[in-house]
């Protein structure tokens, strides 16, 4: 079997066939790799942070003077470190028992030393909820990869049907054809793996270094590229490719060469024909009613991703922090002693003394409800930044512990931007997949209608009109698919909003992505039908 020849000739003569598959594979690799890199980086950052703070010890007790060391006689695995004691518990020891007894002894002896536990921090670094979330994202990405490569490959095989039929008819066996298809996809997958992994490494490095590193206290993320994760991505991608190949070729194996070479004819009804019908209307309704399989594919490629886009955007919109510049007047005011609370009227009097016009918003924090007039912690937003500054320096407030929230808020905005970029790129991969798939399917479908399109020209239909005929058909088909997705997306958003007990805010994050997604799908329908029809007419 001349496998190399077939691959080389396809590459030089019909590169788009391979390029589409290659892009799909690369996007899949990127989705998987990006997810694993951000997960590895978070775990690495968390571990590094704990290690830095704890110096590797499970507990640190300080300050401890040398004549207090007798207090540790019963503690296993302790070490004196110049002013403090570090403890690494041996595997048999019971941590809660040791820490409880030690605290008791220190208290009884009247020592001022404090025991800090890093053990639980270490454990939480091992089992972080973020890492679990990312495993979920990884599984989702693998599902998206499988479905998109599966569908793309089906479209690819459709365009190669005649070639496969010819090879069969000339006497190539199923095994030989399968070997050719497998080699082809393997080469493309290998190339996609190289490019995808490289792009992911560079991209995630940039995101993490620019947005997420140095956010100590907010998030511990340090760029980490793990060879093990890379192997996992290679394994997953190859596995997906091979699964797609073997399932598709099994379907092919059941077909005879004649079937593969023939255009199948299915009898149709003619109930759509009415008097006085325009060509555009007839064409559109005939195609919508007859090409049901194509409708399903278009709907399937459009609807779930539209719905997903609406719901995810709404969800992100809920959590969007306000711009740091706009929150420069934010402070948090704590009451020093938690036994004492400030009455709401006292707090207001204090603030009115600073800004008599009352241009501030006071929000109690930490479980204080509006029916509870006692406030232990409050969040204040001032309209005027200078009032905020005078609050921080005023003598009246010095009795309370005032925390300046402004710097931290900027950090949160950066954190949000970092994850935002990750998820935006993740989403872009998915939507690029969908665009490519939809355009390919529409192209392949119209390619099968080549004879009809050329015939229209032969019987005197103007070129512009032919293009318009097919564009109208797809504008309607796409419009219906998008319209079908909107109510479902909005309904699910409503359910989510009620479930999370959070309002959906009509901000940029909620509205812009769905609008862009609608534009993307609309463009896929209109551009693909226009381009393919024009191309077929030009080729004659």
């Amino acid at each position: 079997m001349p496998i190399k020849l077939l691959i080389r000739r396809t590459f030089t003569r019909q590169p788009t066939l391979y390029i589409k598959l290659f892009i799909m594979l690369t996007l899949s690799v990127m989705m998987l790799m990006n997810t694993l890199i951000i997960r590895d980086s978070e775990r690495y950052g968390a571990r590094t942070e704990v290690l830095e703070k704890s110096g590797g010890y499970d507990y640190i007790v300080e300050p401890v003077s040398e004549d207090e060391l007798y207090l540790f006689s019963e503690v296993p695995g302790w070490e004196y470190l110049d002013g403090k004691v570090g403890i690494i518990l041996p595997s048999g020891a019971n941590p809660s028992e040791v820490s409880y007894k030690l605290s008791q002894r220190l208290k009884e002896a009247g020592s001022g030393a404090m025991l800090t536990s890093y053990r639980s921090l270490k454990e939480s670094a091992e089992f972080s909820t973020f890492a679990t979330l990312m495993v979920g994202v990884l599984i989702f990405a693998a599902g998206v990869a499988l479905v998109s490569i599966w569908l793309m490959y089906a479209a690819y095989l459709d365009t190669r049907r005649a070639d496969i039929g010819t090879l069969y008819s000339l006497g190539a066996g199923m095994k030989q054809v399968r070997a050719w298809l497998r080699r082809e996809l393997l080469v493309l997958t290998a190339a996609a793996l190289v490019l995808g992994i490289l792009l992911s490494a560079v991209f995630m490095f940039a995101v993490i270094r620019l947005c997420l590193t140095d956010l100590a206290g907010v998030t511990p993320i340090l760029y980490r590229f793990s060879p093990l994760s890379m192997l996992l991505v290679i394994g997953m991608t190859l596995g997906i490719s091979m699964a797609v190949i073997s399932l598709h070729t099994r379907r092919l194996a059941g077909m005879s060469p004649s079937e593969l070479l023939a255009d199948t004819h299915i009898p149709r009804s003619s109930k759509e024909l009415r008097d006085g019908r325009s060509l555009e209307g007839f064409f559109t309704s005939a195609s919508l009613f007859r090409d049901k399989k194509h409708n399903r594919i278009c709907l399937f490629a459009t609807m779930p991703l539209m719905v997903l886009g609406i719901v995810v955007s709404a969800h992100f919109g809920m959590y969007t922090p306000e711009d740091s510049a706009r929150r420069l007047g934010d402070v948090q005011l704590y009451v020093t002693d938690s036994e004492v609370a400030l009455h709401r009227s006292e707090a207001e009097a204090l603030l009115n003394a600073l800004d008599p016009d009352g241009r501030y918003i006071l929000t109690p924090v930490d479980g204080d409800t509006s029916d509870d007039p006692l406030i232990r912690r409050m969040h204040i937003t001032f309209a005027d930044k200078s009032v905020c500054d005078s609050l921080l320096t005023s003598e009246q407030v010095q009795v309370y512990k005032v925390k300046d929230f402004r710097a931290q808020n900027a950090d949160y905005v950066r954190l949000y931007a970092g994850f935002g970029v990750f998820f935006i790129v993740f989403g872009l991969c998915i939507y690029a997949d969908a665009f490519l798939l939809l355009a390919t399917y529409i192209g392949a479908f119209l390619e099968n209608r080549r004879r009809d399109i050329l015939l229209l020209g032969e019987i005197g239909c103007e070129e512009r009109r032919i293009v318009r005929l097919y564009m109208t058909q797809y504008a309607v088909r796409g419009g219906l698919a998008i319209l079908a997705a909107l109510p479902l997306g909005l309904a699910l958003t409503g359910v989510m909003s009620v479930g999370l007990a959070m309002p959906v805010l009509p901000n940029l994050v909620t509205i812009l992505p769905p609008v862009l997604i609608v534009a993307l799908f609309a463009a896929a329908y209109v551009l693909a039908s226009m381009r393919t029809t024009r191309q077929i007419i030009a080729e004659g």
Partner: protein
Amino acid sequence: MIQVTDITKIYGTGGATVHAVDHVSFTLGEGQFGLLCGASGSGKSTLLSMCGGLLRPEAGEIVVGGENLTQMKPEALAAYRLKRAGYIFQDFNLMKNLTLEENIALPAMIAGRKSYSGNLRELAERVGITGRLLHFPEEVSGGERQRCAIARALINSPSLLLADEPTGNLDADNAAQIVRLLLEINRAGTTVLMVTHDVGLRDYIRENAPSPLLLNMRDGRIYEKIG
């Protein structure tokens, strides 16, 4: 050479079935030139595909050179197509990404033959496309494409050549050349079974082939055998 006994092919399921080939039997001897004639839709292509191992009949038997096609496993049937039966299609079915030379060599490469270039050159000369070998199918005329397809069908020296309206897409001049070529191949010893609905061609072949067999088809049945 070919012994067809009572074969039937039905397309479609349920109410909309077509008996494309309906209990057909005939025998074509070694070295004979068989002509399968009939109106469009009478089942000629379906019958020929089954003889070429491209399609399996619902019932009946096809025995070629002592081997029963209907009982073969898919891989054995592929080997039959590769080595024993050359097939020529009305619309050529060339691989459009391969040059004419590569298209001709394809069955030899599938068979894993080591040396075929001498054979290929000789065939190309015989069908008259030596100067066109490095072109792609879309760059040459229909007649040249069909001659390329004939050379491809012959590269593994099959003892049986099946041709489904090989001149159906060609003008009269090219059609005549192709028919002369097929007659020549038949005279050199290859059994040929050709489908046509062109009366002129049919008569020309009956006059010029050493031992012609004419099979007339209508509605999936052979109603007349002459030869």
